[in-house]
């Protein structure tokens, strides 16, 4: 497990090392079952195209979960994420063969006191920004 960052040593503007997370159709089927969101736009290509989407798209919440991994891995303790919010700005299109890749980055935006820091997150799939206003509060040691 990664070394847990310490509040006193973290500086505003510090980058959290970027990560990429691959997405396949299988992940979306598993996520549908685990979350209880069985909307067919997330697993049925025919249905997705019929409602005007280019192909099957990932659940917004799946995308949020992947971006959240950047935070939980950085914090060292997933329970340290005390607040986490996003706006879904573009869908992640997941073609059958190639799947998709989500690129996530983060930056310490503000030190809030009491060991808490605000982190701004960026998330893209290809050239598309998939999350905006993605921000978390992380409790550091």
């Amino acid at each position: 497990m990664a070394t847990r960052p310490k509040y006193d040593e973290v500086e505003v503007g510090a980058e959290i090392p970027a990560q990429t997370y691959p997405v396949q159709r299988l992940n979306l089927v598993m996520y549908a079952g685990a979350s209880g969101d069985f909307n067919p736009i997330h697993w049925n290509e025919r249905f997705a195209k019929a409602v005007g989407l280019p192909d099957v798209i990932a659940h917004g919440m799946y995308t949020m979960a992947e971006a959240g991994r950047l935070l939980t891995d950085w914090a060292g303790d997933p329970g340290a994420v005390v607040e986490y919010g996003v706006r879904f700005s573009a869908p992640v299109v997941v073609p059958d063969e190639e799947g998709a890749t989500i690129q996530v980055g983060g930056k310490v935006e503000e030190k809030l006191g009491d060991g808490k820091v605000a982190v701004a997150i960026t998330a893209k799939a290809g050239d598309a920004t998939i999350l905006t206003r993605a921000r978390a509060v992380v409790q550091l040691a």
Partner: protein
Amino acid sequence: MALNRDFIGRSYPPDEPYEVSRVKIKEFANAIGDPNPAYRDQEAARALGHPDVIAPPTFAIAITMAAGGRAVADPDLGLDYGRVVHGEQRFVYTRPIHAGDVLLATATVEDIRTAGRNELMTTKVELATPEGEHVCTAYSSLVERGAEG
């Protein structure tokens, strides 16, 4: 179609308590492809100071979506679910959810408004233990896309 503004402020008290299991947390962690041991290994979770395995930060959606869905599914609201996209989501935690938790979900419709051709609906779902300990509040914003052109 405009959503029924009478729903603003409407609150839905908890129905069945949700029992958080280790198996469900592990299933969710597997689904998001996250190998973090805090989600599956009790010793690893205890070493971090948690009483049992904890849930990923977005796990609460598996509980809160169903609770918020009670308003969404009410035909009087007038929501066409086929036109709905998830606009925003935010979780505020008092403490992490862990295996063994029994959680009660109280859903409230916070706001309904028009934005251009779309209708925006914001719900708040609070998760608490039967003893009244607050665990998490989830804020969801749904967008009902208006008709094209």
